């Protein structure tokens, strides 16, 4: 029952995390920053706007992206199969990419293309992460992973690789070439407006929930450690975001794949010997 409630309010939790992040980010830059509930104000405003669309496919694909992502988050909360969750998440990214390509807009195409490239970079790492959990727990089920003791030490290298995935997924510097707001005006999200943009906006919040839920898996059954990890990584991610500059998309793939695959391989080989 509790889980069902959490599933339903998942976007709200994500919105709060996003709002909090904007405050933290502002404070790091010595600004006051927007109020904590700012994302919800934005949402209220977006509902009230005149809806503009380019073509129906584009808007429907955007909504499908959101729905799929919500299902992904729900599956994690309900403790389903981790590998399946990761593939379903890939599906949601593909919907977004298709949406980006379904309009004849330069920025949208560039953004979708970069999104596609970033999928190459992080997807293998996520799969290896799932296999890492499998080797320790003997099962891909998230509920099993949650019942076992913390696994961050056994999976330390994969944890490091996962930190890079967080930067990509949350579009933080140095790995934010997919969105690149000043350069390609948000990439795929550029042609969405009003209510339709709201779905993308909420999908962004769900992305926060998704990565931080995956992060919490490292802590296993230890809630305190999970929370500590969340806070620590949250601040680290924002610090890195504010302290680094954006790198190009091809460098992103090279760096993330090289470091990520090396770390992942080390970790998995190590695990198989233990």
């Amino acid at each position, binding site marked *: 029952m509790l889980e069902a409630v959490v599933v339903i309010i998942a976007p709200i939790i994500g919105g709060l995390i996003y709002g909090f992040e904007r405050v933290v980010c502002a404070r790091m830059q010595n600004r006051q920053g927007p109020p904590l509930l700012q994302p919800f104000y934005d949402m209220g405003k977006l509902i009230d706007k005149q*809806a*503009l*669309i*380019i*073509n*129906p*496919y584009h*808007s*429907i*694909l955007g*909504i*499908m992206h959101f*729905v*799929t992502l919500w*299902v992904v988050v729900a*599956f994690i909360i309900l403790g*389903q*199969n981790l*590998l*399946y969750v990761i*593939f*379903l998440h*890939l*599906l949601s990214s*593909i919907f977004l*990419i*298709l949406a*980006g*390509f*379904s*309009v*004849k*807009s*330069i*920025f*949208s*195409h560039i953004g979708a*293309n970069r999104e*596609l490239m970033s*999928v*190459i970079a992080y*997807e*293998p790492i996520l*799969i*290896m992460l*799932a*296999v890492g959990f*499998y*080797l320790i727990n003997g099962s891909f089920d998230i509920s099993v992973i949650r019942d076992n003791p913390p696994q961050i030490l056994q999976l330390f290298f994969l944890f490091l690789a996962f930190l890079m995935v967080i930067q990509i997924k949350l579009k933080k510097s140095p790995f934010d070439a997919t969105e690149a707001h000043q350069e390609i*005006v948000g990439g795929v999200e*550029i*042609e969405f407006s*009003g*209510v339709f943009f709201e779905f993308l906006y909420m999908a962004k919040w769900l992305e926060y929930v998704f990565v931080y839920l995956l992060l919490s898996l490292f802590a296993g059954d230890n809630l305190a450690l999970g929370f500590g990890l969340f806070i620590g990584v949250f601040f680290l991610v924002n610090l890195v975001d504010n302290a680094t500059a954006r790198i190009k998309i091809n460098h992103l793939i090279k760096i993330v794949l090289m470091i990520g*695959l090396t770390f992942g*391989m080390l970790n*998995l*080989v190590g695990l*198989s*010997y233990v």
Partner: protein
Amino acid sequence: MLTPIVLIASPLFFALLVRVGGVMVRNVVAILSVFILMGLSVVNFFSLPNTLEISIPHQSHYIFLFIDSVLLLYFLWQGFIKKHKLVMLFALVQIILYSIVIYLSPTLISNDILVDKISSVMYLIINIVGGVIIIYALGYIEEENFSRCKKNKFIAMLFFFLSIMNFIVSTNNIEIFFLLFELTTLCSYLLIAYREDEVSVQNSLKALWMNQIGGVAILLALIVSIVQYDTLYFDILISNIDESYLLPISLLAIAAFVKGASIPFDKWLLGAMVAPTPVSAILHSATMVKIAPYLMLKLAPAMSGFVSVTITLIGTFVFFSASLLALSKDYFKEILGLSTIALLGLMMALATIGSEEATKACLVLIVFHAISKALLFLQAGILEKVNHLKYIDDINGLINHSPLVVFFIVIGFASLSLPPFGAFIAKFMAIESIANEITANPIYVLALIFIALGSVFLTLLYFKVVTKLFAKDVNSSKEEHQEIPKLYTIPSFLLLIFLVIGIYISLEMELLSNSEIIVPFVLIAVVPLLFATLVFKKAHRVKEYHCGEKDELQLSMYYFDIPEVYEKAIGGVGVVAMVLLVVGVIVK
């Protein structure tokens, strides 16, 4: 009980029937025959006991001997008149080796025909998917400029091929297997060269000599098996196998790699794409190349240790590198061909792992791949014949005039990469079974990485093509839609139905829990549509944002440039791996 025999014999009869008569008569006869074959294979699947063994009278082996000798001489002759040294060389080598095989006489005898569950599944694929493609070919071949006799011969050859395929998946005798293997090579050779232009002939000769390497490998395996194990039957060989002497197994595996066009033998399959599209569909993606994973499945119980690890690694490596290479191609059929090679690599790797789950995954992948690839090749043919398109660079905004084709292409690609389709489930199970193996042998981590990267590349490849179709002009209207002949659309719809049945079966088998599959897809399909009906009427249509400029965007395709060095390196790794597979076994 005798359905396998009927399945083997009746296509030969049908092949004779379709040779005569005009278009109408031929079409009716062919469609009826196809439905008979489909029905038979289904009946066979449900009525067959676990295994069925039939022994062919010994005298008939002389017939096989005769056909085989004629065939090898024909290859030699073809090499001679086409002045192709490699074809001649391999034909000669085969003749010498084959005479050695005839000279040696093993004592351990078993049944010649052995039909088990895997064979029954293969019958289903061969007759149902193959049959649908034959129906499609009836329409396709009429668009070509050939004489009536030659057109009928084409259809007859396809039926003949079905017979060979039905036989090859039921034989237990390696010698007969060799004969049938060579006959598929012959079919491939004749059908690739069907158009008789220069490129076709060149590519058919390439296919011929490369496939003959497989024949040589089988013959060597036969000799070794007779000398070492005193038998030429699969079941005896597998049950008597000695773990320290796996040479016949690894040689047969090489034959499988040749037929499956694995790297470094991938060139022949890519060349084969010049053939008429039904040929590409039936031979080079849906059925014939499936001999490779089928053979691996058959041999899997005999594999262990070094051979098993090496073949798994080669398979996953092929999966990875073929999908990487496909990213730089722009010929639609070539892309399909490379992705076939990639998935065949994965199937072989899965078959080799041999755990129950991996075997299941392999079979699911074989079935779904056959259906989806057939569907995609049919669309490639439609694009070629109706829309006159061959390259993905030109398929811009196809949705404006051929929404049905776009729908099928999208379904085809989705069924190869996304849930709830079987290919996805198979990939899912592949990762699971490889994860299982890692605990035993850490080198499987490499296989895992290949699979992870390969599946991402394949998804990227599919959606790179799909995205291209989607760019819709808002102002397009229904009048621009292109008419597609019925003989083209009906086979596509049939395949679509099989795909749905496939999903239903995979749900029944509970490969994944049902709620995991059904719930998200209902949501993903329903919610946006509900929303769409509510809001879209009120929404204003606007232009794309072009910084306020009014210019239209010209779309083009993006390619991933893969340097030639990499291509060579991948080929080199393939050759080294094949050599290693043989040498490693001998040295051990």
